[in-house]
């Protein structure tokens, strides 16, 4: 599945490289480069979340996905207008804050899970299973 996703993303990226539109704020890097970067980040994060058997790694994957989103926001903002760049920068900042808060809580949960079950594998805590 990860293989398929990667192939699809590469195709999307190849298509994006042909589309060259100038940045509103005068950035020399075209937009689709950011987008490809964001996709790569997202797919890496998703792959980690889906494949790893360790809660810590899953949290790291989630961070990657969040950052992919944040990069997307800022890239779109910079190619739209200055006002939009400000707005998207603020949103990006919020995402960073959110990610920090989320990581804090998630790590606390992971610590507690480890304390209770002596494991960090997500399938091991199964008390609520019938």
């Amino acid at each position, binding site marked *: *599945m990860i293989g*398929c*996703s990667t192939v699809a993303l590469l195709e999307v990226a190849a298509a994006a490289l042909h589309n060259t539109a100038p940045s509103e704020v005068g950035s020399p890097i075209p937009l689709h480069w950011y987008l490809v970067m964001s996709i790569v980040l997202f797919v890496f994060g998703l792959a980690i*979340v*889906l*494949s790893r058997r360790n809660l810590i790694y899953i949290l790291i994957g989630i961070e990657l996905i969040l950052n992919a989103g944040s990069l997307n926001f800022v890239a779109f903002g910079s190619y739209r207008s200055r006002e939009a760049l400000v707005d998207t920068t603020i949103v990006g900042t919020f995402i960073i804050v959110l990610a920090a808060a989320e990581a804090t809580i998630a790590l606390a949960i992971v610590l507690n899970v480890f304390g209770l079950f002596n494991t960090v594998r*997500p*399938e091991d805590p*199964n008390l609520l299973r019938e």
Partner: protein
Amino acid sequence: MRFDWGTFGDTEVQMMIWILLLPLIGFTIQIFVGNKLPRRGDWVPTAAIGGSLVLALSLFVRAIKMHKPDLLVHTAHPEGASVADTNGLAINWLTSASPDGNFVFAFLFDNITAVMLVVVTLVSFLVHVFSIGYMHGDKRYNRFFAHLGLFSFSMIGLVLSANFLFLLIFWELVGLCSYLLIGYYFEKESAANACKKAFLTCRVGDTLMLIGMLLIWKHTGTFDFVEIFDQVAKATAANGGAPPDWCLTAGILVFCGPIGKSAQFPLHIWLPDAMEGPTPVSALIHAATMVVAGVFLVARMFPYYMFVPDAMLVIALFGAVTAIFAATIGITQWDIKKVLAYSTVSQLGFMVAALGCGSLSAGFFHLMTHAWFKACLFLGSGSVIHGMHHHQDMRQMGGLRHKMPVTYWCMLLSTCAIAGVPLFSGFYSKDAIIAATLDPHAGFQGVAGWEQAGEGFLWSLPSLLIPIAALMTAFYMFRLIFLTFHGEPKSEHAEQAHESPWTMTLPLVVLGTLGVFGAAPWILDFDFMGHDIWFNHVVTNPTFDAAAGVIAYPAVVPEHHHSWLPVIISLIVAGSGILLAFSFYKWKRFSPEKAAKKWGSLYRWCFNKYYVDEFVLKVVVRPLVFTWNVWCAAFDKFVIDGLVNGVGRTGKQLADGSGWADKNIVDGFVNAMAFMTQIFGAIARIFQTGFLQHYLTVLAGGAAAGTAIFYFFL
């Protein structure tokens, strides 16, 4: 038709209606609200029957004063006894397309009816008055008076009916009242059995009477008496003076009704048992009125019977045999009411024998006089029983003459009357009966072969038996008087006896007076031999005019041919009977015990009533009951049990089917639902792994697939 509206008109018909309806109204009030009325309502039926009595007396006086033997009031025109004709009173009870099916209630009033109405209402009224004293303090006092009222209504209706059908209805109604009143003390088993016995025994006769009645209807197409007589007369005239063949069968069958109701020989067994009822009832129903309904029917049908001398011979023989049969039993009984009961059976035999010997006037005359003195005797015995604290055995009585003087004198006078002492009413009627039995031709003039009808041994049998029965009557009645009122008191009840209150003695005095003066030819013109009794002016034998084919009633009474023979016979039998009683019980010349021992077997047969009851019980009742029980058992086993078992089996099979359906269809459906749910659950569980990453994989795959579809295909 012999209408005479000039003298007997609408007013009189209105009076008849009220005579009939007053006791019914009294009964209706009494049965529904009697218990709530003051004195528990005894005055309601008494006043009602009193009103009837006044009206009946008025009609009687008018009828007698006319001196018309052919008086006849028929309120519906017999020839058109159909829908349209309603002069006077005619109620269409049932109508149909064919005139044979039209049954009209109408009145038939002639001199017989006039006499009978007075007998019924007067005795009934006096018995009502007597009952006020006799039944005082009884717990069903109000119901007793209600039943008396119903009886009076039924009996008056029977007397007034112009139609065989309605006569039968009232006939059965009086039977019902008899049943109710005999069984008045129904807590007593003997009373309950007695009323059943009376009812069932009478049914035997009534069923045969119904067959005879329907036979007449089949051949004449009508139930109306007058029309039946006319048709039979016409058919007889057309036949050359010989009646049609069916007349004999129908006549004998119709006579079976009187055999039951008037307690003639084979069916007499109910009447002595009927004494279980209260004594006023015995006086009213089982002595004076209801039991003479049979005699009244024969008298009513007399113009019919005079065409069939053979049927008359049967009637005469039944009457004569009953008269002597019951008299022999009466001699031996100890219960005061049983003696009077057998005396009644015997006297009814006298009347029936007189009618059978072709003398309507003699039979009916005795009916009337008997009603007076027998009612008086029964009420007197009621007074005695009341004074004796309800002890009825004559062996415990004696010496009551001084303690109950009024009762004594009334009963003594009535006993003289029934014994046939000259100048008393019974003498004249018994004399007429003996004269009739000696000359049985008289009734059949004009019918073919009537000259031979009165000849032969069988026809002379009544003239032998009746005087002997009269002798026994005199003997046992004086025996009753001596045992009850003379000698020394034989028990403490007799010593403490007391005279009854005036409500009880007054009816006794009235009836006793009538018993003495009821025929009274000698008061007015010193006619001591009874040549010119008023009764003979109003009730005479009809004759048949063969040439015209009609029944003729003599408009003027012919000179009464009076021979000395019957007078001498009746004097001899009455005198010797009384003398015998005196020598046995007063002068003690002979000892009754020794006589009983001397004729031991005969005495035992008489004392045990010739074992008729036992015979009926063994030959009729037991086999019937046994057969019935067998039938019932078989019916119970095969039909009832079969029904129950069938129902059970069907129920079981239905339940089996229902159970199968429950198990296989209903449960199957429910189980199928559960099974399906389980299947779907099992399928759904495949996707519910509980691993987050599986879900997330599906989520991501889904989103990717969705995006791909959106991107490439849309």
